[in-house]
């Protein structure tokens, strides 16, 4: 009798909030029928720190360090986005050298973020070795960025009108050595992982997201591009010096876990291209705009800025009354939408695939919770 009930009834499995494969504090309430997921309910908010509330409590400048604490894996990209948003609203023009430096650092940060995802994702799937290689590569980037930013993770390197300090020789040498090294490594990754039959079996055709689904849930970034939709904010709404640089937007076809993996690997190659070109063209000149107020404040009005972070479209919606303190600052974070599609992807899959699908979305929970 008891056995019969166990087999036929659905039951709940609580995954997280401290499960190693949820990468941060995400809780998934899964309703299972045997090994099949019937329903998934993500529970978030465990690391809600109230960044948007903090924004209404301090000046535009004072909020700057907060930006690197939302998505701690691509802190520089957030830092960059916030500075661009405020600069556009205030009408500040950034010297070209500063903008090139920002792009070089931001793309290195994007690679570091993708590398961490790559290592952690394969670890989730039970492959230990790639993790060690990925962290070795990532360590190089952290050391290079540490040279100019002074930090390893929560960078606060951009300033309104420029960057905090100029690139030094150690940074330039580091990047020049790193580019060929990662190119060799990416080849290794393709041989080690991309053609690995165990990996293929675990990711091909799993967690398929259609382009319509992605649009419905406002999914962006590599997750969207894996479904074949050509949308990269760097191309769609060009900002900074990206229009001057030559790079491609890798696209997937099937929208499954494998394509999401593959798109990110190709993106690292493109980011290397961007860094290479930007270094080559790096103009001379000042790194801070002259005559920028210490605490600039946008004129009254509403402003929106879209940015391509490592995980998708980052949107900053600013409302100013012209005063020192923002009226409202909304952060449209990509992982928020990317997680909201998960219940749909998980319905009907096996529990073992839950980890493969969840990992393939590259979620950073503190970014969602803000």
């Amino acid at each position, binding site marked *: 009798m008891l056995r019969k009930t166990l087999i036929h009834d659905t039951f709940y499995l609580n995954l997280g909030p401290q499960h190693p494969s949820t990468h941060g504090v995400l809780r998934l309430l899964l309703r299972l029928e045997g090994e099949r997921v019937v329903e998934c309910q993500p529970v*978030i908010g465990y690391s809600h720190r109230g960044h*948007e*509330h903090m924004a209404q409590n*301090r000046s535009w400048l004072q909020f700057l360090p907060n930006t690197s604490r939302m998505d701690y894996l691509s802190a520089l990209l957030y830092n960059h986005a916030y500075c661009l948003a405020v600069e556009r*609203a205030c009408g500040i023009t950034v010297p070209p050298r500063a903008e090139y430096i920002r792009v070089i650092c931001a793309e290195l940060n994007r690679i570091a973020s993708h590398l961490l995802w790559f290592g952690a994702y394969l670890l989730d799937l039970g492959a230990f070795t790639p993790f060690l290689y990925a962290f070795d590569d990532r360590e190089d980037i952290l050391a290079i960025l540490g040279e100019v930013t002074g930090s390893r993770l929560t960078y606060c390197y951009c300033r309104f009108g420029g960057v905090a300090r100029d690139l030094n020789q150690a940074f330039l040498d580091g990047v020049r050595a790193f580019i060929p090294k990662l190119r060799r490594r990416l080849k290794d990754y393709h041989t080690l992982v991309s053609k690995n039959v165990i990996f293929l079996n675990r990711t091909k055709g799993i967690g398929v997201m259609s382009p319509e689904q992605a649009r419905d849930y*406002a999914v962006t970034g590599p997750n969207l591009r894996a479904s074949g939709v050509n949308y990269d904010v760097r191309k*769609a709404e060009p900002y900074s010096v990206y229009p001057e640089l030559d790079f491609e937007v890798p696209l997937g076809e099937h929208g499954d876990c494998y394509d999401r993996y593959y798109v990110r690997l190709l993106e690292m190659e493109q980011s290397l291209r961007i860094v290479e070109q930007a270094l080559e063209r790096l103009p001379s000149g000042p790194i801070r705009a002259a005559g920028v107020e210490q605490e600039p404040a946008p004129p009254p009005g509403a402003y929106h800025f879209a940015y391509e972070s490592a995980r998708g479209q980052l*949107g900053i*919606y600013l409302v100013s009354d012209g005063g020192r303190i923002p009226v409202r600052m909304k952060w449209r974070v990509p992982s928020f939408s990317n997680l909201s599609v998960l219940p749909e992807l998980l319905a009907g899959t096996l529990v073992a695939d839950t980890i493969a699908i969840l990992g393939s979305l590259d979620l950073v929970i503190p970014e969602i919770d803000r």
Partner: protein
Amino acid sequence: MRPGQVKELLASALGVEPRETDYAACGCHLRLELAGAQVVDLAGAQVVDLARLMKVEGFFLEFITAVDFDTHLELVYSFTRHQEPLRLQAAVQVERGGFAPSLAGVFAAADWQEREVYDMFGIVFAGHPNLKRLLLPEDADFHPLLRDFTPRPEHGGDVVNLEMG
């Protein structure tokens, strides 16, 4: 698609006239303000019609948020397209603690976005399938992004006063 086309489309389908804004300065092409008087009955439905139209025209719902202007709240809907830079933001005035129609039936993305707005501002979305707290604890009885909200120790964590010079 160009901003002018969307403008014509909205005028013919919904009878509303969005204002063209300077994209280079504010990051938005079209802004649609729905006045306060319409909110209770008309504009509510207008937002849903707008969302339906946006969906058919290939837009996606970037975000929904609200701004507290002390006298009233302003709900902001942001739509954009994958194909070209084209952003339409619609603003609807809502009373504090007031209602707005849910878009969850039109865009799946609206489900969580509206839950967050409810969480932070206390706007109730009529017709939402699961309007619960999203980021705050499920037993929270406050809406922290309202401007008259003051953090108290019982809200959790340490209360730090930032002295603003």
